[in-house]
């Protein structure tokens, strides 16, 4: 009998083509729209109703069953609340990573299994290899689209039962296949769910939930007050926009921009510098917490690499594992320090070994 797959359908072309491929491969496919968020945000109309209609339209076209799983409450609790709590601590968390860990590869996985699914599937660009004892999460063929950065925290159990149908394809191939099969969303703009609010939008998003609290902007070298900000929690290390400095946003006199180099959350002070070589910006070591390591880095011959942002280059790294579950990443050359709360993801060749949260 055909195996049953519950495929998460967002209304975008990637998950639509995933459903199409699974159907062609002979699975019994059930399309699921996960309703995680429906509220409009400043400057952004939440597209959930249109996305749902797009997903359902494709499901109907493919002749597969379709349902909505309402995870709005859980998303609010597990992703948004976590995000707000982390921001209030001065960190810059990644809601995508959390959404995959808590919603898509946990609640969706569990509900699908409960409902008799053999597998779940999503339209992520990633590959999974389940022939060995531990399931392997592998980078997508389309290096430009690889999404394993967002997936490193999902559980082995879920991964064992996950299919990534488009992991072997490139984005242009996915679009072409969608168009050839008459899927109406073949050329739809990339989804803009809350996971993709982006850095500029994030501040507006946070302001919906966190009150503005004006504080000082000081130059780190001189301690001189240069201007004022709307709350240290809204700023990220390395940021150069949205600073209110003597009436000129981001620039003073000589035209060189100031960067945020440090945040003092307790005293609500944001420190800035024009010095691109400031010691707060650069580091050759990163401390990690909440480390997940699916396999020892020793299993790969070419050594370990770290990725510090989605689509950022892979950087050679030495991993120092400690018994308390923390770890440190040692780099040969200094790197620009990512904001605390972001993820560092570790690779050995094609395999995503795991990663951790940057302290």
């Amino acid at each position: 009998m055909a195996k049953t797959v519950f495929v998460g359908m967002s209304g975008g072309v990637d998950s639509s083509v995933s459903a199409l491929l699974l159907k062609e491969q002979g699975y019994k496919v059930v399309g699921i729209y996960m309703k995680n968020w429906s509220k409009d945000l400043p400057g952004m109309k939440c597209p959930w109703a249109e996305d749902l209609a797009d997903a359902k339209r494709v499901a109907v076209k493919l002749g597969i069953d379709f349902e909505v799983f309402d995870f709005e409450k859980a998303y609010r609790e597990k992703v948004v609340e976590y995000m707000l709590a982390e921001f209030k601590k001065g960190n810059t968390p990644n809601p995508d990573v959390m959404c995959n860990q808590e919603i898509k590869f946990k609640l969706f996985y569990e509900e699908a299994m409960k409902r008799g699914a053999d597998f779940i599937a999503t339209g992520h660009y990633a590959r999974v290899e389940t022939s060995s004892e531990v399931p392997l999460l592998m980078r997508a063929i389309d290096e430009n689209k690889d999404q394993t950065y967002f997936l490193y925290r999902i559980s082995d159990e879920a991964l064992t039962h996950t299919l990534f149908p488009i992991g072997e394809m490139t984005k242009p191939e996915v679009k072409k296949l969608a168009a050839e099969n008459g899927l109406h969303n073949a050329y739809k703009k990339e989804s803009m769910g809350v996971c993709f609010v982006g850095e500029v939008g994030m501040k507006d998003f946070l302001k919906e939930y966190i009150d503005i609290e004006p504080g000082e902007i000081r130059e780190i070298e001189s301690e001189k007050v240069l201007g004022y900000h709307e709350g240290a929690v809204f700023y990220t290390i390395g940021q150069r926009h949205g600073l209110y400095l003597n009436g000129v946003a981001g620039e003073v006199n000589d035209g060189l921009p100031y960067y945020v180099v440090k945040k003092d959350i307790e005293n609500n002070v944001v420190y800035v510098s024009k010095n691109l070589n400031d010691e707060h910006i650069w580091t050759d070591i990163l401390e990690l917490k909440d480390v997940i390591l699916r396999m020892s880095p020793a299993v790969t011959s070419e050594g370990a690499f770290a990725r510090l942002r989605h689509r950022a280059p892979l950087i050679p790294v030495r991993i120092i594992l400690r018994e308390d579950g923390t770890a440190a990443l040692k780099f040969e050359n200094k790197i620009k320090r990512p904001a605390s709360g972001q993820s560092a993801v570790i690779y050995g060749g094609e395999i995503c070994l795991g990663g951790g949260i940057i302290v």
Partner: protein
Amino acid sequence: MIYLDHAAATPVSAKALKAMEPYFATEFFNPSAAYLPAKKVAADYEAAKDTIAHAVGAKGTDLVITAGATEANNLAFTAVAQHNYGKDEVLYLETEHDSVRAVAQRYGGKAIRVLSSGLINLNDLKTKITDETKLISVSLANNELGTIQPLAEVAAIIKEIKIDRYKRGIKKPLYLHSDASQALNLLDINVARLGVDMLTISSAKIYGPKGIGALYVSHGVKLSPLTLGGGQEKGLRSGTENVPGVIGFATAAKEAKEHLNGNRKKYKDLKRILLSGLQGYELINKKHTLDNFIVLCYNGVDAERLIYLLEDREIYVATGAACAASKGQKSHVLTAIGLNNSQIAGSLRLTLGETNTAEQIHEAARIINETVAAERKRING
């Protein structure tokens, strides 16, 4: 294309389009300006308002022009003192459109129940009216089922209550508002005969342009403006007049009156063709309904899937009201008349209009039958 969703939108008639055209770039003047060409535009505007008002047996000066029916419904509720809620009570029919429901709920309004026929439960109305009730809103025809409410009977009940109030020295007014936006081209409407104090009408549903509507307000009803400014529309709706919109609305309203009897006969015939051609359905709106409204239930089928399947064949239909369906909400109207979840999920709304021909309806029936059969086959695996 076979368009069967005339309750959602209608194409602007050729006459209305032509009548509007000069007022965009030639007769563009601000009606409030002092020179003669502007005064001519002001006169045309007032004449158009008269034409619209005549369509419901009123005068142009009794109308407040608004940017559509939603705004007109909102304006009607300003009859209730805004800083006084708790004292002024409002009642609304539970099957009203969201533009009445949402406003009524803001004013703490209580819902009047409907019977399984979709008609107002007059006993429930009587028990819910108190000495504090100031406004009652009951649509003339429902936007999901086309159910025509016995407004004259409602008005008669209200009249009795008013007489009783006056006898007891209670001075609080009691107004009847009705949203007639679905009915202007399908029923012979006369505000005096209906006994309403306020009536909402819409251009977009009668082959006029979108974004224009009106509230008929009888003498003595005191409203508060929603927008302040230059004092247009007797101070109730400031803002430079939408002259082309009103001209288009007036042309469409005039045509609606002229075509009324012919269209009603046409829709009755088309409905008969459709209902005898379709198979395996349950008719939901059997009685007391607008001539062009057909609500069908295909039990066990997800009607939303049918929309997408029919869309591929260029047949456009609806489930419930467009605004509710797009939010994935269960229709409050179908719930109110006692349908179960499976019946609600299987309900399709087809609304006939001037674009339809008998040939189209035969064709639509054939394709809908095919589509439903294929979908049932898919479900049964």
